[in-house]
């Protein structure tokens, strides 16, 4: 892992069992992401993108290899440590927004702070982020009263409120129309540019992938064009 690298993946493998069959989802992935980089991972369905996303997000442990994120070794982490990783080190943006339907936009963001024990911290800088995302006037609305684009922008705010080392976005425009897709992608690029937020975005859409500094392609559990 170089000095500027925030994520270093070496020979990452993941095997999981479906019935009696072992499925090799990742077959030796190598990846290096620099601090402040906006990286797009592109690939067809079944290429292992989502499995990589889940491992990097600490949602599931790898089978073998090494993953170093912000100086922490994911392979050696216990469940508790991976839970802790999700609190502070990574932020998630999902295709389906995944906001809690019972809470307002503000509370969807606050609950992420609460879980990470950041609640109560007055962050005027974050108010600027909310303005940048264009949701500062929509914070008291519940998800059902918001458009898909607005919901996704709230999800982005929730993902970065705890200042994660890396933002993982899994098909963030998959449920949006072209206009909203472009708005969300521009916002991600703005966040990366203005805040230096490291972003790893998974997508199957080449146009969306082009918003990143760099695009890597996955196929059959491997990087076809690994960038190091």
């Amino acid at each position: 892992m170089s000095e500027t690298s925030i994520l270093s993946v070496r020979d990452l493998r993941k095997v999981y069992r479906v019935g009696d069959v072992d499925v090799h989802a990742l077959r030796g992935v190598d990846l290096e992401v620099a601090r402040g980089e906006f990286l797009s991972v592109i690939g067809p369905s079944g290429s292992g993108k989502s499995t990589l996303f889940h491992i990097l997000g600490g949602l599931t442990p790898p089978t073998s290899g090494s993953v170093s994120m912000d100086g922490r070794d994911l392979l050696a982490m216990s469940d508790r440590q991976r839970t802790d990783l999700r609190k502070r080190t990574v932020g998630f943006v999902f295709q389906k927004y995944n906001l809690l339907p019972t809470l307002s936009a503000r509370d969807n963001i606050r609950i992420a702070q609460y879980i990470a024990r950041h609640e109560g911290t007055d962050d005027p800088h974050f108010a600027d982020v909310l303005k940048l995302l264009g949701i500062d006037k929509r914070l008291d609305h519940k998800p059902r009263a918001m458009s898909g684009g607005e919901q996704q922008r709230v999800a982005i705010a929730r993902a970065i409120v705890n200042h994660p080392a890396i933002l993982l976005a899994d098909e963030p425009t998959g449920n949006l129309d072209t206009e909203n897709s472009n708005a969300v992608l521009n916002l991600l690029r703005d966040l990366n540019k203005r805040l230096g937020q490291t972003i790893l975005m998974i997508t199957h859409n080449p146009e969306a992938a082009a918003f990143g500094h760099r695009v890597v392609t996955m196929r059959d559990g491997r990087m076809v064009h690994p960038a190091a």
Partner: protein
Amino acid sequence: MINKLVLENLRHRPIRTLLSTVAIGVQVCMILTLVGLSRGFLQDQQRRARGIGADIFIQDSGASALSLSVGFPEKVIRFIEKQPHVTMATGALMQSTGALSMVTGLDLPEFQKMSGSFRFLHGRAYEQPDEVIVDDYYARQHNLHVGDRLMILNRPWRVSGIFEQGKMARVIIPLRTLQDLTQNNGKVTWIYVKLDSPDNTQKVIDYLKALPGMDRFRVLSVQDLVSQFSVQNIPMLEGFIGVVIGLGVVVGFLVVFLSMYTAVLERTREIGVLKALGASPGFVLSVVLRETSILAVLGAVTGILVTYGTKWLITTFAPGGLIQEIVPDWWAIAAGIALVGALLGAAWPGLKAARQDAIEALSYE
């Protein structure tokens, strides 16, 4: 923030919240009503026993304060009357007329010499063998007025008077008539003894117990008698209360289990989101248990309030003999029972939620 999430979850499904609350409330109400009825019955018995005005009560040794053994020859009354410090003695015959109701046969003039006159709110004392007097509580519940006909022991009686409650019994008929009807001629259930001074009560009790042949009788002071009106002395009541409490726990368990199980299934994706945000299994479990605790508290408050309604219903519609007390000292106990049942019911759904795999949960449709 976690409490806000819990409250919003409850608000999000108002019908489920309402039904769960009502079901837990019914369980709490069931317990409080049963305890209230038991206590009301016992306190009423105590109040009326004190209203007799006797210093000593004598009963067959095979009976208890709440059972109706007959077997006293009336001549024992005359024997007791001759003992030192005894100013007068009289007897009463009691006959059960239903689950919790009874009719009492009294020699009214003699009884009134001991306890003072009945205070008649309407009418007068009975003068004919087929006349009955009832207290105002019984009259109100049965909508009785002076001159009305009342069926007791399969025969009609005419209400001659309605007296103020708190003395002896609710339904009183002439002693001789009751003895004839029940083929207990010359027999009584209780003997009531008035002394020259209440200060001599213990001394006379000791004296009477020492007399030859008195070992087949129970000789009690007012305090002794009143202390016997307890849940333990009503056959099977304690066990019955235990069964109702057990049923309450089971009902609470099942209701909350079903409610929280469906809630956890419905919120599978949300649980995945919380886990993705870094929520620990303990956090997820805590959300479920807090939600359950709020349902239990709401249910307990509902149950307590409903007991006021059941009291009104019983007072208004139930037959004579049923009195429900409000029992604040049992509120916390009943709420605790509801909480235990609810938490037991939430335990498995809560653990299921806590152990939910985040990836599976996030892909749940």
